[in-house]
């Protein structure tokens, strides 16, 4: 049964050094608040998993908490590179980042296989690509009926998955809607799970066949309004494009990045504190306070 609990406690008790952690979100509902809390608590030696690592992964990687990244597309959407990710891969700073690289189809199927308690995912994939040459976890199996050759990759089974959603009820049942990405699969593939939500309501008012995660299948639900900022939460607030653009110069320099992280994340108490400091340093619009 999901406990409705403060984010700090959820991260403290559920994310452990050395864990494999997936913070998922496909552009929409990216769990930034939870990512910051992982940084504040200085979780170490993590293996991060995500189809589309973006700014929050750039931050966790840049702070040195990550040993390995399993992913399929890493960039700053609409802007360009993830400079901290690139520096870790190209320059080994602040530590060498091991990568295991897939295609989106591979990752999406690996989450499905994980949620289904299968040891591997089966797909038509990677044909003609060099990815199997650099990733020994891309193998091939034969169909026992037709003899066809199909790709096989290990399931993703995170120790913890973290997502953000629109709402939860008081029993911890969670509703998300709009762009769903792989969040449901990522949660069900994981041993433990944390869901931050925009609001906690008496009744989810979920449409029939909506994407609802029952509270009993989750470990913790945390009330973090605005917790997907600077990404968006459909029905609540828009993405703050300026933050994404402003991130590029911040992340280009190691020192600039460290200074920014200290001021905005390490020296703030929580995500609300981060938003307040951001409003001071970048102006209230950049902190997204007009919409959140």
């Amino acid at each position, binding site marked *: 049964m999901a406990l409705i609990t403060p984010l700090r406690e959820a991260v403290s008790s559920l994310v452990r050094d050395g864990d494999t952690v997936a913070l998922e979100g496909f552009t929409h509902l990216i769990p930034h608040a939870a990512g910051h809390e992982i940084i504040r608590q200085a979780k170490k030696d993590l293996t991060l998993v995500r189809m589309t690592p973006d700014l929050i992964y750039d931050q966790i990687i840049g702070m040195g908490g990550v040993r390995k990244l399993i992913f*399929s597309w890493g960039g700053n*959407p609409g802007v360009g590179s993830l400079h901290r990710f690139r520096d870790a891969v190209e320059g080994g700073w602040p530590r060498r980042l091991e990568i295991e690289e897939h295609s989106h189809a591979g990752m999406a199927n690996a989450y499905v296989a994980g949620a289904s308690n299968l040891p591997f995912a089966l797909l038509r994939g990677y044909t003609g*690509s*060099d990815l199997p040459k650099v990733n020994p976890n891309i193998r091939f199996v034969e169909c026992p009926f037709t003899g066809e050759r199909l790709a096989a990759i290990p399931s993703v089974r995170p120790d913890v998955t973290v997502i953000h959603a629109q709402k939860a009820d008081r029993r911890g049942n969670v509703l998300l809607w709009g*762009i769903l990405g792989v969040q449901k699969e990522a949660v069900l593939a994981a041993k433990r799970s944390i869901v931050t939500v925009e609001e906690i309501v008496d009744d989810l008012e979920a449409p029939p066949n909506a994407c609802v995660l029952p509270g009993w299948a989750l470990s913790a639900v945390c009330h973090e309004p605005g917790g997907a900022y600077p990404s968006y939460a*459909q029905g609540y607030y828009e993405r703050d494009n300026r933050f994404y653009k402003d991130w590029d110069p911040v992340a280009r320099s190691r020192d600039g990045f460290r200074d920014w992280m200290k001021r905005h994340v390490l020296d703030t108490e929580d995500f609300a504190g981060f938003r307040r400091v951001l409003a001071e340093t970048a102006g209230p619009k950049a902190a997204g306070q007009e919409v959140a």
Partner: protein
Amino acid sequence: MAEAVPSSADFSATEIMTVAASRLLHDGTVCFVGIGLPSTAANLARLTHAPEVVLIYESGPIGAKPNVLPLSIGDGDLALTADTVVSTPEIFRYWLQGGRIDVGFLGAAQVDRFANINTTVIGAYDAPKVRLPGAGGAPEIAAQAKEVFIVLKQSRKAFVEKLPFITSAGFLDGGDAREKAGIPGGGPTAVITDLGILTPDPVTRELTLTSIHPGVTVEQVKEATGWDLRISPDLKTTEIPDAAALAALRDLQARTARAHGQSAGGEG
């Protein structure tokens, strides 16, 4: 009654590239759309000659009809305007792998002579000079769509003799290498650039310049290509963007700039 003939001064190189790419999409086509230039061209097609084109984005929207261009592959406007929004696994499993995509519309960091795509790395994989974002949906889009359009700006850095890494297969080593590798879809049928349109030779599958944009010289195109580019003996001049398409494109981009304050796009 004589109208002024539009000249190349009336549109930019990016505009003719976008309009030329959009023209390749037929009405009713089911198109798996990459973000950035492919998304601009596909939406322009929808807003002009192909109102029934079906746009599918890897984040889940099927039949998206965005009013402004998405900045990322998962913008809210894609979800709100779509016929339905499914999960990302379902997009890749039931819709792409399911064989339901007519055209995969991709961008690229680099392409080679046989229309293979690199979006992974410049330099060695284990000691990269430039680490690019990676594969995203492209390997399976390139493999499984019935045909593939690639749109990118032409330069020696982007059009290279040999890719450091094949992220997504075009025709591999050319000839029937793609078929022999068991790749189901038909592969790239056009590479649309800011200088012209390249199409694969039907037998060797080598990319050949078959259409050149007005005002561009063959020398310029060769100069911007990292291998000795074949020129079609039948080389055509790309049709100039008509006024309606140009107006629709500029309107779309102005709406997008107003909405987002920028116009680029990426996965994520």
